C-alpha cells in the first residue's frame, strides 16, 4: 500500500484508548452481572462491578507454601498488560495509535502470549488444581490457536495487506463477514479461547475449585480477572476492522460505529457464556483439528480464489 488510510495519533492518546477499553470492559462485567442476577431471580446487578472491584481491593493478598511468586504475578499482571498491547493496532474510525504494516500479526503475537501467561498463573501457585487448570488451557490453546491463525489470514488475503487500517478500508462495499462467515466464526471462537471465556473456561472451572484462580486473592485476582475481560473486549474490538467494515456506516461518524459494533459483538459473547456448557479440552481438541482447522483453511482457499478471479 502506497499511503496509509488511517492517521496515526501521538502516543499521548493511548491514555484515552486505555480508558475506552476499560469502559467497554466495565460494560461487559456489568452486563454479565446483570444477566447472572436475572438468571438467579435476584434483580439488580448493574452496579456489581464496582462492588466486586472494591471487595478485591480490600482483600489481602495471600501466598502458598513454596509458591513461584515471580512467575505467578507475571502471569496475572501480564493478562492486564497484554490487552492494552492488543488495542494499539485497532483503528478507531480514522485514527490509530500504531499503524503497523503487520498489525494482524501483532494481534496474533499478543494472543499467543496468553498461553504463557495463563499457564504461569496456574503453575506459580504450587497447587494441583492451579496446575491442572494451566494445562487445560494449553490443551485448548492447541486446538483453537491454529484455526484462529488461519481465520486471521482470510481478511488479510482479501485486503492484500496485513495493516489493520488497510483491511478495514478494503471493505467499502461488502463487509468481510458476509463472504467469510466461517473465518468470522472461527475468529470469535479464538477470542473466547484466549480470553479464557465461556466454553473455554475449564481452566477456571468449578470442578477444580477455580483452577488457575484457585489460590488468587485480592488485587492479584482482580488483575487476572480484569485481564480476561479486557482481552475479551480487545478481541471483540478487533473483529470490527477485520470483518465488520471498521468505521463504515450511515449517519454516525466512523469512531462511533467502531464502538457500536464492538459493544454489539461483546454483548453477544457475554450473553453466550451463560448459555453454553464448558467445552472439555479433550473433546474440543477433536473439533479444533478435525472441523475448525479444515474449515478455516477452506475459507482461505475460497478467499484466495475470489481474489485471483477478481484480478
Amino acid at each position: 500500500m502506497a499511503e496509509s488510510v488511517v492517521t496515526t495519533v501521538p502516543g499521548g492518546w493511548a491514555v484515552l484508548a486505555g480508558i475506552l477499553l476499560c469502559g467497554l470492559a466495565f460494560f461487559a462485567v456489568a452486563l454479565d452481572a446483570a444477566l447472572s442476577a436475572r438468571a438467579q431471580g435476584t434483580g439488580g446487578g448493574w452496579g456489581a462491578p464496582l462492588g466486586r472491584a472494591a471487595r478485591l481491593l480490600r482483600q489481602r493478598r495471600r501466598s502458598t507454601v513454596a509458591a513461584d511468586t515471580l512467575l505467578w504475578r507475571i502471569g496475572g499482571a501480564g493478562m492486564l498488560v497484554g490487552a492494552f498491547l492488543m488495542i494499539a493496532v485497532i483503528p478507531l474510525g480514522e485514527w490509530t495509535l500504531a499503524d503497523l504494516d503487520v498489525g494482524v500479526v501483532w494481534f496474533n503475537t499478543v494472543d499467543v502470549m496468553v498461553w504463557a501467561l495463563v499457564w504461569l498463573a496456574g503453575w506459580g501457585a504450587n497447587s494441583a488444581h492451579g496446575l491442572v487448570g494451566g494445562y487445560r488451557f494449553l490443551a485448548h490453546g492447541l486446538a483453537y490457536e491454529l484455526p484462529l491463525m488461519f481465520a486471521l489470514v482470510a481478511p488479510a488475503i482479501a485486503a492484500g495487506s496485513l495493516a489493520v487500517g488497510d483491511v478495514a478500508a478494503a471493505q467499502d462495499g461488502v463487509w468481510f463477514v458476509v463472504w467469510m462467515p466461517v473465518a468470522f466464526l472461527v475468529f470469535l471462537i479464538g477470542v473466547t479461547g484466549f480470553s479464557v471465556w465461556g466454553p473455554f473456561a475449564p481452566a477456571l472451572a468449578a470442578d477444580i475449585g477455580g483452577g488457575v484462580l484457585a489460590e488468587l486473592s485480592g488485587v492479584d485476582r482482580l488483575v487476572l480477572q480484569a485481564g480476561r475481560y479486557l482481552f475479551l473486549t480487545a478481541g471483540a474490538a478487533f473483529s470490527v476492522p477485520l470483518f465488520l467494515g471498521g468505521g463504515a456506516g450511515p449517519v454516525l461518524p466512523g469512531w462511533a460505529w467502531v464502538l457500536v459494533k464492538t459493544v454489539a459483538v461483546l454483548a453477544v459473547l457475554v450473553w453466550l457464556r451463560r448459555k453454553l456448557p464448558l467445552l472439555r479440552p479433550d473433546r474440543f481438541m477433536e473439533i479444533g483439528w478435525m472441523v475448525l482447522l479444515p474449515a478455516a483453511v477452506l475459507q482461505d482457499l475460497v478467499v484466495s480464489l475470489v481474489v485471483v478471479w477478481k484480478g
Partner: protein
Amino acid sequence: MGLSGALARLAVRATRVLVVEVPGHWATRMEVEHQLLRRGWRPAWTPADADVLAVCGAPGPELSELVDRLWEQMPGPRVRADITSPGTVGSALDAAAALLLDTPHHRTDAQERAQEPEIPEDADHGGHGGMDHGEMDHGEMDHGGHGGHGGMDMAPEGIPLAEGGEDRDGLEMDVLHLPLGPVLPFWPAGLVLRCSLQGDVVVNAEASMVDGRNDDEDDGAGAAGPSAGPAPAAVVRCDQVMALLALAGVEDAAACARRARDALLCGDEDAARDAVERLDRTVRRSWLLRSSLRGVLLLDRAGLERHGLPGHCRGDAHDRLLSRVERIRAEAGGTEPTPAEDGGVPWAVVPDLVTGLELGSVRLAVASLDLDPHPAVQAVGHG
C-alpha cells in the same frame, strides 16, 4: 474513615461465602445459598476467594480441624459464621456483614495471624491428608524439575517429593496425591475421595466419610433440629441436577435448577413447576451439553451388576441427567406418584467407578450418581 469506609460498604455488597456443609445439614446449606444470592452475594469456590466462612451444622472433630485450616487460608477480611439451623441463617449473615465492615477488627486480625503460609505438622501420612482443595497440598507439586525423583527425605519447605509409578502405558510417571472433598463446590457433603493422580488421570482412589459418619444420624438430627432427617426426594434431585449442570458449566440452566429446588423447598408449587419445565426444555435442547456429558461413566447392564448399582444408573451421565429431570418433573407436576425408589448409590463404590477417569470426568461422574448420603454400607472402598 471516609474513603475506606465507603470502600468497605461497597465491598460488602459483593461478599463471597465459602459454604461448608456438615453431612445431614442440607436444609441449612440450601437456605444459606438461597439467602446469599438474594443479598447479591455469591458463593466462593475456595478459601482464597472467600470473605465469609459459613459452617452449616456442628462439625465433628475431623471436619472441625479442616474448617480451621480453611479459616487459616482465607485472605481476610474474614468472618466465620456458625449456622446450626435454617432459621438462624438470616441473622447469622447479617452479623457477618456487620463484622465485615469493622475495619479495625480486621487490621488486628491480620497482625495477629500467622504471616507466612505453612504446612501443619500433623498432616497425616505423606502429608496428603486433609486439605480439601489441594491448596498447599503437600506431596504434589514435585515434578522432577526440582532435582530428580527419589529421596523421600528430600522435602523442600516440608513438601515431600513425588514418587514415580507406572502409568497406563507402562512408563514411569510421577504420582500426585490429591484429596477431593469434603469441602469442594458441588460435591457430596462429607465425602472424601483420596485420589492418586498421574497427570490428571486418577489411577487409584480411596473413599471415606468425614468423621466416619454413616451410622450416627441421630447426632446430626439432635444438633440440627428441624433441618435433619431425610430430604424430600425432588429437592435432593434438583440439588444434584444443579451440581451437575454447574460442573458442566451451563450457568443459566444451573440457576434454573436452583430456583426449582428453592421453590420446591418452600412449597411454591407453581414456581417450581415453571422452573422445572424450563429446565427440562433447556437440558433437552442443548446438543453441546449432550456432547460434553456423552460417554461419561457409561454403565451397561454388566457394569451395574458388577458394582451392585440400581437400574436407574444405567447409561452415561447425560442419560442419568435426563432421567433425573424427568423424575423431578413427575414429582413436581404431581402427575404420577413417585416411582418406587430403587435406592441410591453407596459412596463406597465410588473409587471403583472413577479409577481411570480424568479429573474433570471424575467430578461429572460423581455428580451424575444418586450418592446415598447415609449409606448402610460401612466399608471403605479401594480402587
